[in-house]
């Protein structure tokens, strides 16, 4: 029996991996701030505010993509509800940002503007404590986590899987979006939260704040990556991939898939919540359209483009898709949907392993060529020697593709 490729790829982080992590960390906290704050705007290495915000936003998306990869790539569960967890994290932290506006809103009231508009006199009960930074940060993790846990418990317990699970998560997200669109829900309805002024007392638009938020995004992404690698390399990860590939057999051996799925599902949702919490102060707005069905499916395409079951791949996937989105929507807005649609179709048809798989394939082919050349040379040297069998099995990744789909 073949070892699933995912396990081979992620056998720990290794010294080179840690070196890369350290390098990225230093770059994010030292080089980028320097390039943004110190260099004059005319300097070719200057990083503009636009770039910082855009990359910061994409980093948050990348965290979501990695979280999605954990559940989809390694658990074989396609969630169409990750947009909800992301938005819930954003809303939780957004409450803090709304409270930080204080009396600087258009109505100069103690409560957020939209509540004044609804003629509310005081904050509803679920807003209590939201003036505390830590409480909101906790909410940003706990609310998506709790909802994911409850939902996942019932879904996994009745062994809902495959497309059923996907559609049910989609229905959940859709219902939540409708709920948040209501003004009476108390989260700003259609407009959501916006016009933030401060975070922890610092101006939210100050370059220093942006740089810190950027650094935090990079840190969160690295942390997610390290956590993901550790999880996958552990015994837990082995059982999880086994459940993905043959759930019934794993059950027959005596494991209960419920716990494994539920754990990775909840962790994934909490990571999304954190990403949402970092996303909102950088983008400056959160509204119910973040929970739209289309958004959640787009998360899946980031992972698919990057390569499922590779953890690093989805980061590139999120980057590629979102950068092209930025480019298309400014240059050819009417063709963006064509591009995105074709991306969905072509990637699933011709690139089931994503960019990471393509990279692995190219590397494997090179190795094969090298081995072949070596064999030829050997054969030329010793004519009587038997042929070496063709080296690496180029079909290895299919193990993931066939079952993980």
């Amino acid at each position, binding site marked *: 029996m073949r070892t699933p490729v995912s396990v081979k790829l992620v056998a720990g982080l290794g010294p080179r991996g840690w070196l890369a992590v350290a390098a990225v960390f230093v770059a994010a906290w030292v080089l980028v701030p320097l390039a943004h704050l110190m260099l004059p705007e005319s300097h070719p290495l200057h990083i503009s505010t636009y770039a910082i915000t855009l990359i910061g936003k994409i980093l948050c998306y990348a965290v979501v993509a990695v979280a999605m990869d954990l559940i*989809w790539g390694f658990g074989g569960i*396609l969630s169409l509800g990750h947009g909800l967890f992301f938005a819930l994290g954003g809303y939780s932290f957004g409450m803090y940002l709304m409270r930080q506006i204080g009396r600087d809103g258009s109505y100069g009231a103690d409560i957020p503007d939209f509540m004044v508009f609804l003629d509310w006199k005081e904050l509803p009960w679920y807003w209590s404590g939201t003036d505390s930074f830590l409480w909101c940060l906790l909410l940003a993790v706990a609310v998506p986590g709790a909802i994911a846990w409850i*939902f996942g418990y*019932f*879904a996994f*317990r*009745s*062994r*809902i899987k*495959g*497309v*059923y699970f*996907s*559609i*049910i998560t*989609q*229905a*959940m997200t*859709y*219902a939540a979006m*409708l*709920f948040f*669109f*209501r003004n009476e829900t108390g989260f700003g309805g259609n407009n959501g939260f916006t016009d933030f002024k401060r975070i922890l007392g610092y101006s939210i638009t100050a370059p220093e704040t942006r740089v810190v938020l950027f650094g935090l995004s990079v840190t969160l992404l690295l942390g997610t990556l390290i956590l993901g690698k550790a999880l996958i390399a552990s015994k837990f990860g082995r059982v999880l991939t086994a459940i993905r590939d043959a*759930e*019934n057999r794993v059950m027959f051996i005596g494991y209960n898939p419920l716990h494994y799925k539920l754990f990775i599902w909840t962790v994934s949702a909490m990571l999304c919540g954190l990403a949402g919490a970092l996303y909102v102060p950088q983008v400056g707005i959160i509204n119910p359209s973040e929970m739209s*069905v289309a958004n959640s*499916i787009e998360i*899946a*395409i980031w992972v*698919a483009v990057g390569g499922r079951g590779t953890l690093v791949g989805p980061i590139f996937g999120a980057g590629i898709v979102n950068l092209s989105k930025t480019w298309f929507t400014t240059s050819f807005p*009417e*063709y963006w*949907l*064509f591009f*995105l*649609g*074709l*991306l*969905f*179709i072509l990637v*699933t*048809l011709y690139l*089931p392993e994503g960019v990471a798989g393509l990279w692995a394939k190219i590397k494997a082919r090179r190795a094969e060529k090298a081995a072949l050349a070596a064999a030829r040379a050997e054969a030329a040297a010793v004519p009587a020697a038997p042929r070496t069998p063709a080296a690496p099995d180029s079909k290895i990744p299919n193990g993931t*593709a*066939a079952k993980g*789909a």
Partner: protein
Amino acid sequence: MKRLLLILSLAIGLGAGAVRADVAPEVLKGLASEDFDAKQGAVAALAEAGDADAARLLKALSDDAVAVAGDKLVIVAGEQVLDAANGKQLKPAPASPDSISLNNSLRQQVDGALAALRLLSIDKAERLAAAKALLADMGDGAALLPLFDKALKQEQDGDIKPILVQLQAQASLASPDAALRLQAVQTLGQSSSPAVKALLLPLIEKQGDTFAEPDEKVRLAAQTAIKAIDGRLVWSDMAGQVFTGISLGSILLLAALGLAITYGVMGVINMAHGELLMVGAYSAYAMQALFRSRFPDFVDYYVVAAVPVAFFVAAAVGMLMERTVIRHLYGRPLETLLATWGLSLVLIQAARLLFGAQNVEVANPAWMSGGVQLAENLSLPWNRLVIVAFSGFVLLVVWLLMNKTRLGMFVRAVTQNRPMAGCVGVPTARIDTLAFGIGSGIAGLGGVALSQIANVGPDMGQGYIVDSFMVVVLGGVGQLAGAVWAALGLGVVTKFLEGWAGAVIAKILVLVFIIIFIQKRPQGLFALKGRFVD
């Protein structure tokens, strides 16, 4: 009762018996006076007189053509000046007529009186129209009461009479005579219109410490009457909600039938299914445009032509999708889901480029507009009735196709056990394409139906994929009966919840219900019996 009315009208001073050729001088004096109360009394008297002179004078009042010239009241009609009393031309025309002023309430009264006078018209249609207009808005009813009495006495028509009875009763509610009010309340209690209930409600309300209605008997009668009306309203209300629910359900059914087939046969969710609805709706739009430009005489029948066109266009698009994309993803249902989502995006954008991003206008043909009035508050629109019948027809055809044809047998065989079906010679690949085509075609039919009641735009399909999949989930895979029950049940339940909690909460409740439901029955209501393990 009649006697009472007569006495009452006589008591006002100028009874029906007092009709003369000329307008009474007291009335003219009242109109000419500066006091609005006097004017009001005079208008009431005119309304009551109800003869040709009074009608002319009222019309003139409403046109602001009445003036005072010296000691005479005149009607100014262009160059001519007429005597207000009898309409004779005055020669020579008096100098400097001073036109009299009306305030708003007076004007309302004049208009009401004019409408009421039309009740006495010879033309039956005009009488009916006038009666209906008064029913909708009567203004000051008490002043018109004598006129209603008169009209009722003359009226022979069976359609108009009940309306007049109701008008009379409504007008009598303001009467100072408690016995008259009691009678009126009892008459109104036989109605089953929400408007009448609204009229009766103030009678049993308290204003401060005292009741608005001083007489206890009348209050009691009003209470009974409201209860009786409520009882009748409840049933027609319920019937109305059930009907809108069934109508929503029949749309869901059309959307879900196709999905049930494709999901049943291939186990893939076609996320572009909603866009196939959109394709069908745009086909209807295209046929409408074609008929308008080429066959304007038959434009009312474009819907009939749109049905086959939409079926084949959507089926062609579906089969193309199956051949080019879905076929290559067999055994990877989650990736199929993503790829078909991509297809849906492409279709949406294509529709935007072809037809524009705005919604297009698809008109109901004349024979589908209007409705059947079953009760005061229950009217069934024709377009919805046609759609319910249409989805019943489609259901029948699909049932026959699935159960009585060789193709249907193959489709069922592949649904139940694909490898075994292949082993006994069913061409599974071709069946897949055909089944996908049929499912897509049915979605196209759903699109035609939808175009008659909803907006047609590029995004119209997006909202239906979750709903129709919910129907499939509820009903169980590959089960026609399940899909029918699930669609109708979901439709009716949604409409009742909407009435009770509002549209958004209703939607959320339904979704929550389905999520809980599949905890208990992951196979749906009507599960295929069998033992499968992967």
